[in-house]
């Protein structure tokens, strides 16, 4: 378990390709060190890494593998199996719309179209200004409030297009304020 892999080593292993932007990998090392070195912690480690970067950069994934003594393929296998891991940068806000049956039969489809047209993006996409990423997801476990969406960690229920519009407009205002615009 070597703790002194440098960014350069990782790059070389990856074929010597220059990453477009240099990513500070110090947090990754800290995360791996703070959690036990057993394989069982792989998913929590990757979740924490994602919390730092908003996604799991390739260099970070490689470093996790090397530090935990796993094959990179094992880490990649886990990253691509679970839908909540992302390998590309994501928007400042994550909007998840439920496409489950309970929401579908209560007008979920209209809410999804409204969101897509307001955000200008479809499932799995991120708006160019990085304002938001949009995902259609399976049941959010709030079927009593159908149709439901989740914005970041908050669920919004019993939606219709009007309510949906208001929520997105509010989110945009909040986002602008937070960014000091």
């Amino acid at each position, binding site marked *: 378990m070597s703790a002194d892999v440098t960014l350069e080593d990782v790059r070389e292993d990856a074929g010597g390709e220059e990453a477009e932007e240099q990513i500070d990998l110090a947090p990754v090392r800290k995360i791996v060190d703070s959690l036990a070195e*057993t394989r069982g912690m792989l*998913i929590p480690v990757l979740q924490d890494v994602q919390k730092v970067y908003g996604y799991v950069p390739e260099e970070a994934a490689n470093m996790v593998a090397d530090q935990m003594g796993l094959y990179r393929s094992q880490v990649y296998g*886990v990253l691509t199996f679970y839908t909540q891991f992302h390998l590309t940068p994501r928007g400042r806000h994550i909007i998840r719309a439920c496409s*489950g*049956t309970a929401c579908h*039969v209560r007008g979920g489809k209209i809410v999804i179209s409204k969101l897509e047209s307001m955000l200008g993006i479809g499932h799995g996409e991120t708006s160019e200004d990085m304002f938001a990423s949009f995902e259609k997801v399976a049941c959010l476990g709030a079927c009593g409030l159908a149709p439901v969406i989740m914005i970041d960690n908050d669920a919004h229920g019993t939606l219709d297009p009007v309510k949906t519009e208001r929520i997105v407009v509010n989110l945009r205002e909040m986002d602008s304020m937070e960014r000091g615009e």
Partner: protein
Amino acid sequence: MKILTRNINRPNPAHIDSYLVNEGYVALPRALNDMTPEEVIDEVRFSRLRGRGGAGFPAGMKWDFASRDTRKPKYIICNADEGEPGTFKDRVLIEKDPHAILEGMAIAGYAVGAEKGFIYIRGEYPEGARILERAIAQAESRSFLGKNILNSGFDFSVTVHRGAGAYICGEETALIESLEGKRGQSRIRPPFPVNVGYRNHPTVVNNVETLASVAPIILRGGAWYAGIGTVECPGTKLYSVSGHVVRPGVYELPMGVTLRELIFEHAGGMRDNRAFKAAFPGGASSSCLDESELDVRLDFNALAAAGSMLGSGAVMVLDDTTDMVKATHVLIKFFEHESCGKCTPCREGLFWIRRILDSILDGKGTEADLDLLLDICDGIQSTSFCGLGEASVNPVVSTIKKFRHEYMAHIGNRVTRRTDVEAAS
């Protein structure tokens, strides 16, 4: 009758002080001080409590198997990966009564001889995970969890593990794989987790609702619990009611309530006074019931006899505005996406079912497609590696059987395909 939901309307229900007011953590010391592990298992066996995750396996028997295995360490896993579409009952317990779950886990640990517990909570419940972590810290500070619990010499600690988005991880062996840091793909059974589970050690995997039922059983006795509900399926059940009813929500009722009572007496009846058309009584993977089956009792045995299943008790109610083919298509898209990819029948079969449904909805289907669908369903059901594939085709088979005319409405009178399935994709 409020057993599981006894605390949810208290102020600040998730706080330990609120739990303690209502006989919270009274069952745990009673088990530790006055009962042997065997007596605890016997009490749960007498209660005839059946697993609330879907399979309905007797909880006491599961604990008994794990307790007989002499290898250590052993583990208790609380399955909080509530992912069955239409199910939102465990979320209520997690957010409103986390200590009931923790107390049940500690009692389970004492009964089978485990010192370590995990709560595997789905990634979509970040708030639930935070609430559970707070509850664990509170319980540790009062010696209801941790080393030498209440000076009994019994150690039991609990760790929350957040899932990362995979329906299959609700299946207990896939959950264990995931907990070990791997892709969540099911293991062959037997051996069962009670003998070869987490890190190949004896492991009890119980649903949230099952564990939350434990403390009341220890407190009032197995015989009391066995007297509630039906003889074969005792106790109360949390039903998650969704869809076209006036008041969707979680209802705690004695097991064996009929579908009619649940919809019309508890959930406020059908929305906009529309007519009832169908219900999936056990989540997305159950067979649907039609109007003629409104008086079926919603318990494990009665629903099995009716050709469906109780599953997690997720009752999705549909009115006469629903297109059953479209509803089935939504369900199948879900299973196609969530198939873990390990076995061919599930991975490929669901893909083809979805393609054929696409084609039918595009107006390009034929009547022969319905036979083809049933044939594929039969293949998936009989040869899939785990329960996901096995149950995933239930909505297709049951809607073709009970609502064939709706498929025919999309198909028309066509006997030969206008364009092949390939072109429809």
